[in-house]
Structure formats: C-alpha cells, structure tokens
C-alpha cells in the first residue's frame, strides 16, 4: 500500500511569506506527527495528533507555527511570516494508535527561506 506522502517536495519562499506543507498519512493510521530536521541534524519533534484528542503542540518553536488535521487524515503545517532559520526539512510520520509506536515517515518537504 501507499506510504506517507508529503507535498510539496521542495519549497522556496521569501522571508516574511507564509507557507503550507501537506501530509497524507498511511490509511488507517490515526496518529500523525510532524518533525523538523535542520541540515546534518537529528529530528526535532513539533506536534502530534492522535484521533480526535487535542494535539500535543509542545514542540512548536513559536506561535508562527501551527498545524491542523482535518477529518482525522490529511494534515497541514503552516508557518507564518517565515524566517531564514525556518529553513529545514519538515518530515511527517504516521502510526497506528498508541501502544504501537512504530512511526513511518514520509519523504519530507525541503523548505528554503531566502
């Protein structure tokens, strides 16, 4: 079956613009995660959705970052007023409900803020 998909694969934007990144999880996975990976670094947790529960937003670095998940499936990560330090690869992962923590990752969106 299809894995986690993300779009766009690459995004170049100007400082101060807003961007939206999309994640389509594996069918049947109710848990969805966003991570950020800066060049040559490990992954930094951003936000976690589980079913209809309130999301865990504790990893969002500032109030310019927000995410939503509509209908328990597709998720959008929005970065407002982008800054150069937002340049990174944004990775989405999904998994079955809590108790099985294996997270399967998408290919990521490479964001470059000029």
């Amino acid at each position: 079956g299809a894995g986690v998909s993300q779009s766009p694969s690459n995004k170049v934007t100007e400082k101060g613009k807003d961007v939206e990144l999309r994640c389509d999880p594996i069918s049947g996975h109710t848990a969805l995660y966003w991570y950020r990976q800066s060049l040559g670094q490990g992954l930094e947790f951003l936000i976690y959705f589980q079913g209809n529960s309130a999301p865990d937003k504790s990893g969002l670095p500032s109030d310019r970052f927000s995410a939503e998940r509509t209908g328990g499936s597709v998720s959008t990560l929005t970065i407002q007023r982008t800054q150069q330090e937002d340049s990174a690869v944004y990775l989405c992962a999904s998994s079955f409900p809590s108790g099985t923590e294996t997270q399967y990752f998408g290919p990521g969106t490479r964001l470059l803020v000029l």
Partner: protein
Amino acid sequence: GESVGLHLPTLSVQEGDNSIINCAYSNSASDYFIWYKQESGKGPQFIIDIRSNMDKRQGQRVTVLLNKTVKHLSLQIAATQPGDSAVYFCAESLHGNNRLAFGKGNQVVVIP
C-alpha cells in the same frame, strides 16, 4: 573519523564486514527504542525496534542491543552492503508519550 560538513560521526566499513553503530540515550525512564536509516534526500526508514523489557532483538542482518544500566543502544549490521550507506538515527520514547526523541545520527560509509 568525523565527517567535515555534516559534523556527524562517520563509520567507514569494508563491504562484507560487520558494522556496529552506537547510541547513548538520555532518559532512563524511556521504554521504547528504535533505529532508523536515512538515505540522502529521503525520509527516515524504520529498521528495528526494541522495548525495555528486552536486551537484544534480531532482524534480517540487523541486531539491536540495549544496555539499560549505562543507557546505551547499539545496532549491528551483518555483512554490510553498499546499500547500507546512510545516516543511522536512534530514537527513544516514553510509554504513553509517542513523541520520539532522536539522537544526532551516525554516517555509515560502505567501501566496495
């Protein structure tokens, strides 16, 4: 030696040899551990996981060892192949909290 540019620890291994990648984790309460492989330009790919009630788990050509006493995790790859060249990340999580905390990664370079 260290890889300049990526600033990641680098393991160079001859094709056919065994590789051992080490990881020190931070939270003694973590009870789930996982190894991912990341090739250039791709997302992390699941390799193998282990829970804290085990100290060893084997997969196909890979073995994960967990030493909770010293908070150490290792990944062993048998008969390393060129396709094993990648960055390898360990990650940990605490039961009931699905967020994964990742290490910084280790670059493996397989020499044909």
